[in-house]
C-alpha cells in the first residue's frame, strides 16, 4: 500500500514525519478530512483552524492535493 503524509502548511504547524499506509487516494482524502474535523471539533482552543490547509503528499513528499478546513464548514 502506498504511504501518504498529511501536513499542516500554515506557520509550519505540523510536519507529518510518520505518514500512513492507505489503499488509495480516496482513502487519503477521507483521512485528510477526518483529521481536519478532529482538530476543529476536539482541539478548538488550540487555534482558529478555519484558515488551515492539510497538504497531502506521496512517498517522495510530492504534493497530491490540498484540503481546506474552510471547505468542511
Amino acid at each position, binding site marked *: 500500500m502506498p504511504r501518504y503524509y498529511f501536513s499542516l502548511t500554515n506557520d509550519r504547524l505540523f510536519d507529518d514525519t510518520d505518514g500512513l499506509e492507505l489503499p488509495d487516494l480516496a482513502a487519503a482524502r477521507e483521512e485528510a478530512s477526518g483529521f481536519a474535523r*478532529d482538530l476543529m471539533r476536539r482541539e478548538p482552543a488550540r487555534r482558529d483552524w478555519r484558515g488551515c490547509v492539510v497538504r497531502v503528499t506521496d512517498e517522495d513528499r510530492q504534493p497530491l492535493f490540498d484540503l481546506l478546513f474552510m471547505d468542511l464548514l
Partner: protein
Amino acid sequence: MTTTSNGSNGRNRLLAALPPKDFSLIASDLKDIDLAQGVVLQEAGEPVEHVYFPQTGMISLLAVMQDGREVETATVGREGGVGTITGLGSRVSPHRSVVQIEGSASRIPAAKFQAAVNASAAIRDIAVRYSDSLMMMVQQSAGCNALHNLESRLCRWLLQTRDRNDSNQIPLTQEFLAQMLGVRRTTLTLIAQGLQSDGLIRYRRGHIEIVNRSGLEARACECYGVIRRQSEAVFPQAQA
C-alpha cells in the same frame, strides 16, 4: 497453569488487602493464568464465568456500539479486578473486557467468588468498595470523553496506564491509541509529536515511553487525579 499457593496473594492489591483467614477461603480456587494481548475476558451482556485479579498488565473495559465501534470506559490493573460485581449478585457483564497490555492474573470461578463474598465480610467489603470506585471511574470517563481536549485526554490515558502497569514503557500502537481516543491516526500523530517535541514522551512504532511524568501530569485533564484518588480510596489502610 499453576495454582496460587495458599497464603500468597501476589501483586494484586485487592487480594493483598484481605486478612489471611479471609484470603484462605478463596486461595485454593485461585489459578494463575497468562493474559495475552487482545484476549476478550468477558463480553457485554453475557454471563460472567470467572473473576480476574490482574497481577501484571492491563485490561480495558469497553462500551460496544451496534456498529462495532468501541470506547474505553475504565482500565483495570493490579489495583483492581474484572467481574468482581458478580460477587454482589450480578450475573452478566456490563462491558467487554479486553487484555490491552499482556500480563498475568489470578482467576476464580464466579460462583466460588460469590460464595466467598457471602461467607466473608472482608471480601464483601472490598468487592463493594471496588465496585463503587469502578462506577466513579466510568462516570468520570464519560465526562472526560465528551468534554476534554485530545491532548489532555492522551496525557491522562498515558499516566493512568503507567499507574496500572507500573511501567513508563507503554507497548501500544498508535492505531490503538487513536481508536481509544476516537480520532484519526494522523490526529494522534500530531498530538504525540507535540508531546515528544516538548520532551514529555518518546514514541516509535508500537511503543510509547513516558520521559517526563510530572510534565505530563501538568498537561493532563483533572480526570487523571480524580481517577487516581478514586482508585486509592479502595485501600484506606494504604492512604494513612
